[in-house]
């Protein structure tokens, strides 16, 4: 077993790390307050190849694989979770669905612009009545001649307000329901009847725009079917499975940031005549943080290796997301506690990380769903099939 990263991955991490420190960190507070990231920053990220980092070079990506992409998400989320989430939705799930199951023609038409960041993508699955129950989606796609007409709503769509392209799961055969009768469509924002809603007001991730999207008889040419008609649900579930690995990597970055901030603070802050690093309670919090982060790091990068090696990874991916989001929440909460009242002040960056982190336990499959996925995989291995 060789636990070292390749020289290429080490160099990649260094480059991304420097970019995050120089360009993302100074802007992170403003991104939160103004609820937007500077388009110039997104352009730079495009030039650096962030938007298509995991995809093969033939398809217009940087060829860094799942491991490289996890490194990107870890480093981005360590400094600016809002920015990481823009990429996470665009690359990790929206473009990923096209990469996994799109025809060569469809990929060739859309992936280059998605890889360069020239166009931003969104993943359209969730609806007002279909959250954890993704199979309960109701958005309809009706075939008439050479076109499908999409009608319904998608909700909580990350990048919804800024997306040029949306991968939408719609029901094409109501008799079969979403599981057997849904199809993924690539929909362009200018098409008639497509209306992104106003950005949602959220507790955190202010710089990651989220909205409702209404489809009012949007005409989609049949050439924009992604994958096979009727097999869209499989495409989207497969995409979510792989998306969990890099989300786990992102949460690793958030937890790491919490530990780094805490180490700086416990040295600088004195009470009772000595730095609080001397307090056993504080020491144990730091030890617990570091231990959990180390375990998560191993889990994430081993799972990334499973993906890059073509091995099964669904169970481990669920574990990455579950353990990662809960670890990050715990570590950031400990960091806030270590900082005392300062951790509660909006004049100090810690509370922003605390607000940003919470959603990771909910989106991309709540942690309850992750537990169902993991249990389902485990039980399948012993011949027991379960349903949520």
């Amino acid at each position, binding site marked *: 077993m060789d636990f070292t990263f390749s020289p290429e991955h080490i160099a990649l991490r260094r480059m991304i790390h420097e970019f995050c420190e120089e360009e993302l960190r100074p802007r992170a507070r403003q991104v939160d307050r103004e609820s937007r990231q500077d388009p110039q920053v997104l352009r730079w990220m495009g030039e650096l190849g962030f938007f298509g980092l995991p995809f093969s070079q033939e398809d217009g990506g940087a060829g860094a694989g799942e491991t490289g992409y996890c490194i990107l998400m870890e480093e981005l989320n360590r400094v600016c979770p809002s920015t990481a989430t823009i990429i996470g939705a665009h690359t990790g799930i929206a473009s990923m669905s096209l990469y996994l199951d799109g025809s060569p023609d469809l990929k060739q038409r859309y992936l280059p612009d998605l890889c360069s960041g020239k166009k931003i993508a969104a993943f359209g699955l*969730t609806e007002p*009545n*279909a*959250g*954890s*129950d993704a199979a*309960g989606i109701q958005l309809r796609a009706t075939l008439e001649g050479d076109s499908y007409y999409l009608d319904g709503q998608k*909700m*909580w769509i990350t990048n919804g307000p800024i997306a040029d392209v949306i991968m939408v799961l719609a029901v094409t055969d109501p008799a079969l329901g979403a599981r057997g009768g849904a199809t993924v469509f690539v929909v362009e924002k200018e098409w008639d009847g497509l209306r992104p809603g106003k950005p*949602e*007001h*959220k*507790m*955190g991730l202010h710089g990651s725009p989220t909205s409702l999207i209404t489809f009012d008889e949007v005409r989609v040419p049949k050439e924009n079917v992604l994958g096979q008609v009727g097999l869209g649900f499989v495409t989207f579930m497969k995409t979510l499975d792989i998306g969990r690995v890099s989300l786990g990597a992102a949460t690793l970055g958030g937890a790491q940031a919490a530990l780094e901030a805490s180490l700086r603070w416990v040295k600088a802050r*004195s*009470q*009772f*005549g000595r730095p609080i690093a001397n*307090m056993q*309670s*504080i020491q144990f919090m730091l030890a617990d943080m570091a231990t959990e982060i180390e375990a998560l790091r191993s889990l994430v990068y081993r799972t990334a290796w499973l993906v890059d090696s073509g091995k099964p990874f669904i169970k481990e991916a669920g574990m990455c997301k579950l353990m990662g989001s809960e670890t990050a929440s715990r570590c950031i909460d400990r960091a*806030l*506690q270590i900082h*005392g*009242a300062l*951790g*509660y*002040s*909006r*004049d100090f960056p810690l*509370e922003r990380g*605390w*607000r940003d982190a*919470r*959603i990771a*336990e*909910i*989106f991309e499959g*709540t*942690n*309850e769903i992750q*537990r169902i996925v993991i249990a389902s995989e485990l039980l399948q291995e012993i011949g027991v099939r379960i349903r*949520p």
Partner: protein
Amino acid sequence: MDFSLTEEQLMFRGLFRDFAENDVAKVAEHSDKAEQPPVELLKKAAAQGFLGATLPEQYGGAGLEALTNTLLVEEIAKHCLSTAITITIHTALASMSILDVGTEAQKQSYLPRLASGELASFALTEPDAGSDPGSLQTRARRENGTFYLDGVKSWVANGGLASVFVVFASTDLSARHRGLSAFIVEKGSPSVGVVVGHREPTLGLRGVDIRTIYFEDGHVPAENLLGALNEGWPIVLRAFNRVRLCLAAAGLGAAEGALALGVKFAVERKQFGVPIAEKQAIQNYIADCSVEIEALRHLIHYTAWLADTGQSYGQQASMAKYLGARVARDTANKMLQVHGGYGFSDEFPISRIYRDVRALRLLGGTDEIQRYAVARGVFDEVGLKIQP
């Protein structure tokens, strides 16, 4: 043992509940979003006697016992933790300290004002003196009939609203906490040299007005010394006991409010064809929170009973505060999870409760301080004196 509330307590609780449901509930969202203390509501509270609840009737108070007072704090906190904290700081920390050790003249002069609508504040914490208040640096020197205060007080709740401050300063720096004296400081003249600084922007409790206060040769008439010279520390300790019991009740109310929201959501939200209340994971959250809330309620009532029967109650007050902050946190967190994506939205109240209760593990003595206090009490009983 009779675990029932008396007829009188039930009657008072009914009054508190009406006020909370009809008046407090209406201001909670706005005071958080506008970051404005609910000034009109506080006037209504004063008119009903809620700002002098535990002050004797001869000073304009309602003469309520500690247990009945916890019911007041609990009912208000179910709907707005900012309001509950504002009132608790005002009464348990400030007004009650004047009642505790004030001269008759001081009591006659200040208590009726504080019972009828003027707000009070308690200035102990400093930038370098948080968990270790004994290391505070604000000094008070006496020249003839005036004390002159020099220093900075931070995290002063109600700082911008209060007309009366109970301020702790050192009259003998070498003696640390045994050299503390308490002063009653009035805003404006005659208190020249007292400057109320900017508001602290906070993660939660945004309806509480929190300030930094600067003293530069702050004039305090000698007759405003509260209690004896260098005898400030016992005042602080008794104030902590009172406020910890109230903060426990605030945590209980906030937890109950959060639980009610989660239960309602679980009944109304359907996924997989059934209300999510039918799912064991959700049931487990509801059960665990209900158990914690029940245990907390009884610890609070027991602690209040100790106080009302003149028994020592500091140990239990620390326990109740520590437990209350944790139960509020656990309940708000789990109920936010029950809400799924809606839990992260500003349009639903649960994320505000989640942000608000985070403060409970910090103010009134952090979790770490409470654990230390409880451990010290336990070891004290077997003859060992431990140090921070």
